[in-house]
């Protein structure tokens, strides 16, 4: 991992256009996040030639470039989840700091996402090389088997055309690529199963001291829901960050973690150091991000990477409805909107931007699909936060952002009437809810008038004792939640911006309200003082059965090009291939018809492995130069060296 491994062959727009006109590219991939990176790595490993367009610059592929993100973060007075990443008017990204309370009937266009309401959604994504995995937290859960058939089992949302068993082998591949730290014996619950003898690449991360205090207080708490008893147990999360390699992995071959990317020798990131900063940036790169996969793809010599190229239009052949080319706008500098317009051709095209941008691009290209579902069924995990002060110093603000949580409300018959949820115990205290720890210092000094020893002691009591539960509540598909485009809202390059229409159903609200109920029981058992409050002035405020709540977005945009069983009920098939356009794939969480209570990345990564396999099989029928299976080592596990 210490060799010079950040060399990415970058092409100029002119040579990309020339190459594509000469028929060089088997696949054109739009976006360098985890979906695009995995697809590129799989395809190039099979001998296929790939062109990848990335809307952002690619300076961060060097160690120096990465370090500039860190300096931005340290110096930025706001520490929101996109704070390390430079503002780029040519490929803007949403920031939670742009979100404010909406006035009924008035769209709010001050951020990149145009918020059409009725509720404002503060979710974000990151438009840089490596995509949102740059700022993701990297909790990396499999979905529960039940999550794939919620319509059939519970009468809510939509079913998948495939099930857990279909995804199992691909989950394994995704866990290898991301480098997951977890112990199988702690993760096999509520139907989650593994192939016999399977172990994760690395051992699970140790729980935080805070986790242990919380577990001591709430393990064994019982809740009765729809006649079923849910017994609480604090459990560790699988993590997409480097831990101690498991020597039993891959039939005893072990696992080599991928550390920091650099142009010169930097031994860093081979193991998590507990920087407590997974979001918005892991300073040592122990957390997986998609640049690691991109670099592996680039090493094949078959990936042409074109940064600063914003896909602007998908153009269809009238005679067979296939994609003829993709038009893109290339800019020379983020400080100028000057750009040139080009088009690229390939055998197949893969849109791997993200759920919002994939839909935005299709709609801006006037391709809403024959089902009319592009952009519809927008989902996200909705979070309720509940925060309190423990009676003792719990060492809060140490460790990764979150090491453990509660899975016992993710399953069961209760799902017929209210949304299920997972629970995170936040090692970073009240940060998400109140801006801790800085806000605590401000209030102790300016409002409580503390100084000297009394201040220092209060800082301990106010911060080290903090406990925040984040309840991640499932949202089911609803066509009225959607992303659209509008000529009235353009970005600096003249591309249409996403317009978000977002509301919470009573099913969601009932789940959120129940999660709040459980938090009260937890705080009581822990002897913690409950500080949660949900102001009607908050942009995420809503009332349910007379009580005030607010929600936060989960940055898990999904559902905007759902997969299904036919062109009438979905946008893509089980391989994420467009029903309408035979050479087009829309990949990522946009393909998910339901999201359960798992952070979406592992499942969307698994889907990309399934899609890559399908693409390779399809292209080999056209007898392009696909290498033989014996050379195809990636899926079998000899990558990473």
């Amino acid at each position, binding site marked *: 991992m210490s060799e010079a491994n950040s060399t990415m062959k970058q092409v100029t727009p002119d040579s990309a256009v020339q190459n594509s006109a000469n028929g060089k590219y088997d696949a054109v991939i739009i976006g360098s996040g985890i979906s695009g990176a995995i697809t590129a790595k799989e395809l190039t490993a099979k001998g296929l030639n790939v062109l990848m367009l990335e809307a952002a610059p690619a300076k961060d592929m060097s160690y120096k470039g990465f370090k500039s993100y860190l300096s931005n973060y340290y110096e930025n007075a706001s520490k929101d989840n996109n704070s390390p990443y430079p503002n780029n008017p040519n490929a803007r990204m949403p920031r939670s700091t742009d979100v404010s309370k909406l006035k009924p009937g008035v769209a709010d266009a001050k951020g990149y996402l145009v918020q059409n309401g009725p509720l404002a959604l503060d979710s974000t994504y990151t438009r840089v090389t490596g995509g949102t995995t740059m700022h993701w937290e990297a909790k990396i859960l499999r979905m529960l088997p039940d999550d794939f058939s919620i319509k059939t089992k519970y009468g809510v949302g939509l079913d998948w055309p495939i099930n857990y068993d279909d995804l199992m082998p691909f989950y394994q591949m995704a866990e290898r690529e991301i480098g997951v730290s977890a112990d199988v014996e702690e993760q096999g619950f509520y139907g989650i199963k593994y192939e016999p003898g399977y172990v994760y690449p690395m051992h699970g991360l*140790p729980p935080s001291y805070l986790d242990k205090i919380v577990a001591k207080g709430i393990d064994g708490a019982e809740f009765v829901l729809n006649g079923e008893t849910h017994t609480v147990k604090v459990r560790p999360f699988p993590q997409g960050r480097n831990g101690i390699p498991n020597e039993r992995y891959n039939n005893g071959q072990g696992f080599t973690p991928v550390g920091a990317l650099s142009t010169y020798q930097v031994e860093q990131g081979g193991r998590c150091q507990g920087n407590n*900063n997974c979001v918005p940036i892991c300073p040592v790169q122990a957390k997986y991000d998609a640049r690691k996969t991109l670099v592996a793809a680039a090493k094949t010599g078959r990936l042409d990477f074109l940064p600063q190229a914003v896909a602007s239009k998908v153009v269809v052949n009238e005679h067979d409805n296939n994609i003829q080319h993709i038009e893109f706008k290339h800019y020379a500098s983020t400080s100028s909107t000057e750009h040139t317009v080009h088009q690229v051709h390939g055998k197949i095209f893969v849109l791997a931007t993200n759920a919002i941008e994939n839909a935005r691009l299709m709609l801006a290209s006037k391709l809403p699909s024959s089902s009319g579902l592009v952009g519809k069924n927008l989902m996200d995990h909705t979070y309720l936060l509940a925060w309190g002060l423990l009676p003792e110093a719990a060492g809060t603000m*140490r*460790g990764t952002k979150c090491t453990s949580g509660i899975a016992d409300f993710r399953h069961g018959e209760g799902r017929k009437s209210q949304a299920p949820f997972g629970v995170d115990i936040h090692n970073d205290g009240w940060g998400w809810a109140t801006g801790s720890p*800085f806000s605590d210092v401000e209030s102790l000094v300016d409002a409580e008038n503390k*100084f000297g020893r009394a*201040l220092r002691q209060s800082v301990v009591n106010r911060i080290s004792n903090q406990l925040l539960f984040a309840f991640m509540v499932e949202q089911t598909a609803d066509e009225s939640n959607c992303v659209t485009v509008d000529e009235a809202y353009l970005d600096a390059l003249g591309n249409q911006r996403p317009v978000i229409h977002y509301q919470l159903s009573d099913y969601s609200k009932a789940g959120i309200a129940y999660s709040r109920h459980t938090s009260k029981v937890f705080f009581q058992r822990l002897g913690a003082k409950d500080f949660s409050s949900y102001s009607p002035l908050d942009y995420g405020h809503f009332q349910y059965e007379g009580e005030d709540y607010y929600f936060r977005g989960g940055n898990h945009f999904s559902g905007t090009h759902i997969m299904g069983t036919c062109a009438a009920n979905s946008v893509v098939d089980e391989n994420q291939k467009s029903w309408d356009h035979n050479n087009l794939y829309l990949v990522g969480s946009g393909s998910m018809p339901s999201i359960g209570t798992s952070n979406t990345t592992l499942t969307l990564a698994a889907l990309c492995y399934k899609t890559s396999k399908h693409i390779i099989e399809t292209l080999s029928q056209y007898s392009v130069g696909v290498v033989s299976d014996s050379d195809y080592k990636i899926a079998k596990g000899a990558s990473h060296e």
Partner: protein
Amino acid sequence: MDNQTYLVQQFTELSGALTDFNAFALNGTGLVQCYYDTLTRLVGHAIVEELLSTFVSLYESASNHEQFNEALRKHILGDEKFGPVARNIIKLWYTGTWYQMAHFWRDAYGMSEEDMTFFVNSASYAEGLLWQAIDANPSGAKGPGYGSWSAPPNIHFDNGWQFKPFTHTSK
């Protein structure tokens, strides 16, 4: 000792009294001079020197820590002019952030145009005393090592600031 060195030393002592971190701990951040310069740049030399001489006279006339704290509260933290400055010094040390002064203060004492809320530099964020107080690393820097989060925090006051009754040799 030249006057500049003396002022910086008194600034360190005042900072110690306000934050409860001793000179050793404050010097260990490497930021004493930087914070002194930031303060004088933003609120002006005159006010800083006035503040420090007030501090010295309070210190010299107090016979124990309790008495000193009372005087500090009344004549510095509870003073119309010095209070906001002293509170900014505390927040600067605890968070590495300079906070913009309140409007009434700006109007009354003619603040610099640079007076905005900002991190003094990237080191100041990582050296915030709040992290030391709770035995945690600053989020995103100084990673303490794999698994360290599993043990209880080691919270102590060993490097707290001590009031020592004034003797005329201490200058």
